[in-house]
């Protein structure tokens, strides 16, 4: 091979090898980009599917709540009202002091039970929550807890109130309801404070109690359906849910969402 041949081989060889290298690199980048887009689409589809599934689950749950609410209101409520009327009649027609006293006591207790049941029925009924609005519905729920559990429940509101839409308000209410119910059931608090912050760009709700709390490192891993449901609802709201707890100090649940 003479010098001229050598340089031809050198140039052609180098060009071919470099072209091959460039082609390979471009192919790799394009292939990976396509793969990334494919993964992104797949993830989006999965998210949509999960959201739809979640919505269906919650719709079914709301249907059940509505059914229980109607049952309580129309059936059990009616029956108890009837019993109350009967007791009223017994008290009026009786001449014995003991029966009158006992019937009056029973009547009062029954009256309280009917009021509590009506409150429960209202807080289970999505129609009532939509009609009354978020703050009013929470107040109703707290009213029931105050009377049933003797816990100091307070609702604070700050900022100029606005509507977040019926569906969102229902989801927020269910989160609050779940958080309060968890506190009452597991933490035995003396007080539960709920704060609704209506900021111009964001809505924040904080549910804080002074109950027994739990160890965030250990107990949160075994958190039950309640916390899971709250997380799912927060996801549907595109909101950020944060749970903070200190053992023997209490727990706070904070939900923040863009208006």
């Amino acid at each position, binding site marked *: *091979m003479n010098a001229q041949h*050598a340089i031809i*081989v*050198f140039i052609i060889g*180098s060009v071919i090898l470099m072209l091959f290298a460039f082609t390979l690199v471009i192919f790799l980048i394009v*292939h*990976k*980009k396509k793969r990334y887009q494919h993964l992104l689409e797949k993830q989006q589809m999965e998210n949509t599917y999960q959201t739809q599934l979640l919505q269906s689950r919650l719709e079914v749950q709301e249907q059940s709540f509505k059914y229980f609410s109607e049952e309580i209101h129309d059936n059990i409520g009616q029956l108890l009202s009837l019993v109350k009327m009967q007791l009223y009649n017994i008290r009026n027609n009786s001449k014995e002091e003991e029966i009158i006293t006992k019937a009056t006591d029973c009547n009062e207790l029954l009256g309280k039970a009917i009021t509590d049941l009506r409150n429960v029925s209202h807080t289970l009924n999505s129609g009532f929550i939509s009609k009354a609005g978020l703050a009013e519905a929470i107040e109703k729920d707290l009213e029931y807890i105050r009377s049933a559990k003797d816990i100091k429940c307070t609702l604070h509101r700050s900022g100029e109130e606005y509507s977040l839409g019926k569906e969102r308000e229902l989801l927020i209410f269910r989160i609050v309801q779940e958080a309060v119910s968890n506190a009452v059931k597991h933490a035995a608090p003396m007080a539960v404070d709920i704060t609704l912050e209506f900021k111009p760009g964001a809505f924040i709700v904080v549910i804080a109690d002074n109950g027994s709390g739990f160890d965030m490192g250990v107990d949160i891993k075994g958190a039950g359906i309640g916390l899971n449901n709250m997380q799912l609802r927060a996801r549907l709201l595109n909101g950020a849910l944060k749970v903070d707890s200190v053992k023997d100090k209490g727990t706070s649940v904070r939900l923040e969402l863009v208006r």
Partner: protein
Amino acid sequence: MAILDFSYYIVLFLIAIIGLYRFYSFDKAAKLIYAIIMIGATNEIIVSIFKYKKMHTMVLYHFYCVIDFFFIILFFLNAIKSRKKHLYILISSIILPLLAILNIIFLQPINKFNSNVFILESFSVIGMSLYSLYTILIDERLTMVYKYPNFWFWVFFLILNSGTFFFWACIFPISKDKNLRDIAQNIQVVINIFIYIGFGFILFFYPKMVRK
């Protein structure tokens, strides 16, 4: 000094500064890249001093090539996170000097340019780059390849060695024509400059790329 050589030294000097500036953010593979470039730069400086003192420079390449080759192997083993890293390091630390010595004894004496070892190095680096790029191709989790520094290091090694392979394979062993060798050498320096600028960019943006 020719303008090309001057530009080449400027690029190497800038990489040295960038490397020092970013050194603590580098992982092992990036530190090895920096070491490879700095070994190359040191060799070029020593070659220039030898030339200035009219001493034989070819002997330097016999040592440089083996060290450079060994560091490149170390880089690839670290970058692809090979499980048998230590075994390969042991094998290459025995085989590389052995091949270099055999080449000196039987083929290219110490005062001749060791193009055989350079050919072997180019060929091996092309193979290792291709294999590394293949690992990226089959890695399902890695999608944004251009944000992955090692990808660019592999690409630069592939292009550098593809572009200069025939330089070692054709020009040096065959041609005795000084003009031809100079032309080829200039082409090689141009390729080196571009590739080292690429290395410099990646080393400079390394912390940002790793964060992503």
